[in-house]
């Protein structure tokens, strides 16, 4: 694999990666914030091109780093190089009917499962570190953090999925 990056004044930054098999991938971070990705198969002259906005690019990036485990519910597993036996998962869930109207403390999420709700996205607004008195509404998307087993318990005991 060879890799290089160059600055293109007025355009942005160009990253060029040639794979072991000889395929070439070029990524341009443009000043506009958008990203162009060129994929050029070995021996081919015209590339396939996709233009992504920053959000799409981040999504693609997290897929490529191998972080997403399940497609339908997003999750990221973090491993620290200094603490090799600690693996923390971060999951997002959409709140279902059986939880709506109840608070985090009332549900006893941490007591029963060990999972912590670190953020809630409600109608485009983000609530970071919601207090135990926080009451769920329909359509809330929660970000839960814990070990893999704890999250499984959260799914079965609290969300009853």
């Amino acid at each position, binding site marked *: 694999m060879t890799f290089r990056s160059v600055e293109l004044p007025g355009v942005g930054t*160009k990253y060029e990666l040639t794979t072991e098999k000889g395929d070439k991938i070029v990524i341009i971070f443009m000043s506009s914030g958008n990203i162009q990705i060129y994929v050029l198969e070995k021996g081919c002259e015209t590339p396939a091109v996709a233009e992504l906005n920053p959000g799409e690019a981040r999504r693609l990036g997290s897929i490529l780093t191998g972080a997403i485990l399940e497609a339908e519910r997003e999750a990221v597993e973090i491993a620290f190089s200094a603490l090799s036996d600690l693996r923390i998962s971060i999951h997002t869930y959409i709140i279902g009917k059986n939880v709506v109207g109840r608070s985090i403390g009332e549900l006893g999420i941490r007591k029963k499962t060990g999972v912590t709700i670190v953020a809630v996205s409600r109608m485009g607004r983000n609530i970071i570190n919601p207090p135990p008195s926080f009451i769920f509404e329909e359509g809330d998307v929660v970000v839960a953090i814990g070990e893999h087993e704890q999250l499984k318990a959260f799914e079965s005991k609290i969300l009853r999925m």
Partner: protein
Amino acid sequence: MDYIAIAFLACLILALVVKKLSLPPIPFYIMSGIFLGSSGLNIVARSEISLFLSNLGLIFLLFYMGLELKLGRFAEKKSDILIGGFIDMNINMIIGFLVAFLIGFEVHDAIVFASAFYISSSAIAISSLIENKKLFLPESETVVWLMIFEDIILVLIIFLLSAEFANLFTLLLETFVMVISFFGISKFAKGYLFRIMTRGDEIPVLLTFSSVLLVSYFSRLLGVPEALAVIALGSALSTVNSKEFERISKPFKDVFLVLFFFFFGVSMEFTGELSVIPFIVMGLVAVGSKMLSGLAMGRVIHGSYFSGFEIGANSIARGEFSIVIASLYASDLVSAAVTVMVLMTSLIGSFMAKYSFVMRRILKEKVGR
């Protein structure tokens, strides 16, 4: 005031249509000016206000260019770019001068024409590289750096052409003092200016706008070339916080530059002693000349004439800077020649840039394998 509104309306409609067809807008702004101006329907005329606003477009373009003019960037670059730059400059300056001279321009006119002939349009070249999805090519890097190189030569050209109206020695001295004082102020007050530029209120915009306008005013008062003054200002301020200054001045540049092109078209009078045919010949030579310099660069830098074809095709379009040179230094005759050249090269150039892949493939099949 009505004229300005008509101009904006015409340009807005054109821009919408032209962008849809992925054509460069600059030639169409000029053409709509010609069409609505004294050479056409005679609906729009120049006024004091239009002159003032057009001049704002001009000085903000040059200020913005000054902001992006970072000479240090060349220090870490390979000599390839310099060689390419010199090939491009020599071939096009010489051919540009010769064609103008042979058609019967006086030496001075021919030099001004050659300068406009040499400078490709950075705006058109870069947006066509992005739009035609060519950024993966190694040749596109050469084209991008070529545009930067040309911008630097443009500063020299502006200096030399201004020198004609003044004593070279006084001009050198004035420029020197001006550059030193701008850079001195930027260095001395860097922390203060930086803090001002990162404020959230209207002060950064006010500072940017008024500093450009003040420098333009004082340069006129003191008889220093305005174009050089605003470039120097931009270049000095880019050492403070180039990102913020670029972000703030871009809208001013974009809006007023449209008026600059439009009213340049309005001012155009095609009633000179020459018929339009020599102008068209000059436009065609302008296309051929950039193809030739492109081929030479491709051979030298990338070791292939096909690469050269790509470089040539993407650098044909002349645009904003050719018009700037024409509006600052050219007689009516040269202005008309430059206008025809810009219209032809920008349209032919964007066509060539769009279909260069196809043309290259056909050439490869015919010529070599």
